[in-house]
């Protein structure tokens, strides 16, 4: 979707301000949101659906809230959409009915993988034969889907070169919407800075971005 999250190329947010001696988390609640999201995600939906839940936030809320507030908003949205919580329970904080799954805690050895986030997305099934090879000239399609996509606006319609063929990977545009993984070839595509940003950009500079085959046409 063409949302505020798709911000590559905007210059309205001011300078970057690195924080000296930044703590890993700025508040105890951020740690808990992190842990709850990582633990809950696998049971609620895919990582792609989680990203899309963040993208669906009210844009003014998205822009005015912090990273872990985004996570919390997505966790709450998916918990309701997947029927784990009712909107009333979310509003009141009082469970009307306990869950049917009464599984015990995860085995300790399962925790590191959960914390790392997700699972590898490369696949050995699906569309395995790449249409493009390294060096091929391609054009990013001018697609404007209303659902989840990982094709940012700033490359749409632009011409680039295949820099690397990564293999076959889960397709986020379907995987975020319960339409399955539909794995297909993924490429690293190189665009010159001038192709993306015009003649004022440095002639020496390039942008590399990972794009799925269905995002690309031969140039």
């Amino acid at each position, binding site marked *: 979707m063409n949302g505020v999250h798709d911000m590559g190329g905007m*210059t309205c947010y001011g300078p*970057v301000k690195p924080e000296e001696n*930044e703590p890993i988390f700025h508040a105890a*609640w951020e740690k808990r949101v*992190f842990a709850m999201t990582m633990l809950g995600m696998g049971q609620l939906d895919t990582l792609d659906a989680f990203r899309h839940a963040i993208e669906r936030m009210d844009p003014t809320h998205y822009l005015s809230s912090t990273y872990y507030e985004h996570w919390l908003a997505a966790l709450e949205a998916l918990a309701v959409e997947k029927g784990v919580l009712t909107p009333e329970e979310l509003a009141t904080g009082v469970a009307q009915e306990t869950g049917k799954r009464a599984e015990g805690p995860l085995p300790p050895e399962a925790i590191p993988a959960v914390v790392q986030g997700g699972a590898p997305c490369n696949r050995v099934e699906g569309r395995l034969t790449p249409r493009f090879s390294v060096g091929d000239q391609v054009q990013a399609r001018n697609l404007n889907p209303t659902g989840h996509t990982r094709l940012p606006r700033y490359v749409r319609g632009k011409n680039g070169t295949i820099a690397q063929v990564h293999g076959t*990977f889960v397709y986020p545009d379907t995987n975020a919407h319960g339409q399955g993984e539909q794995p297909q070839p*993924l490429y690293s595509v190189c665009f010159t800075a001038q192709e993306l940003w015009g003649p004022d950009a440095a002639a020496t500079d390039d942008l590399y*971005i*990972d794009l799925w085959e269905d995002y690309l046409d031969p140039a």
Partner: protein
Amino acid sequence: MHDHDAPDSHLPIEADAELTYYEQRVEAIQALLIEKGLLSADDVRRAVEDMDARSPAVGARVIARAWVDPHFKQHLLADAKAAIATLGIDVDTWSTLVAVENTPTIHNVVVCTLCSCYPRSLLGVPPDWYKSLNYRARVVKEPRTVLEEFGLELAPDIEVRVYDSTADMRYLVIPQRPAGSEGLSEEALAALVTRDSMIGVTQAQEPSP
């Protein structure tokens, strides 16, 4: 100017009120999700402990090895996960990883414009600036200006390569080995490899004379 006196300066205005609100809200959500059987309090505690223990040290160890061992570096550039596995690190659950090398003529820098994808398995939790609107929005368009804000000025003839990690493909920058680091032990070299140098917004530290 640094906001040392304002530890919550990254939060919106009325940080104290926000904090209280979120502490309460997160407490309530956690209680609900435990009640529903989605997670347990033990799981949450152990996941927090696991995350707290992560740091960029794993990444620094990998880079130091690449600096001293050309064969390892070639392996790392060709198949980063497989190379890292040879160090005895369990990479089975990692996303695919790509290592890119800074040279005297090429400088690489990593961003995720659409969200905040980051090689957490190697570098721990991403810093706030990496997740910030200004970094995500600007570094693809004006990388040299953004790098200057980190104190890194690059000569005009250096090729800047920005990597926008849109897929579940993580990027690790191999910074240039600093001058004057000849003869240092691998452990001493790893201490020069900062988190920011592995994202590509700074160089590795120079050894103290």
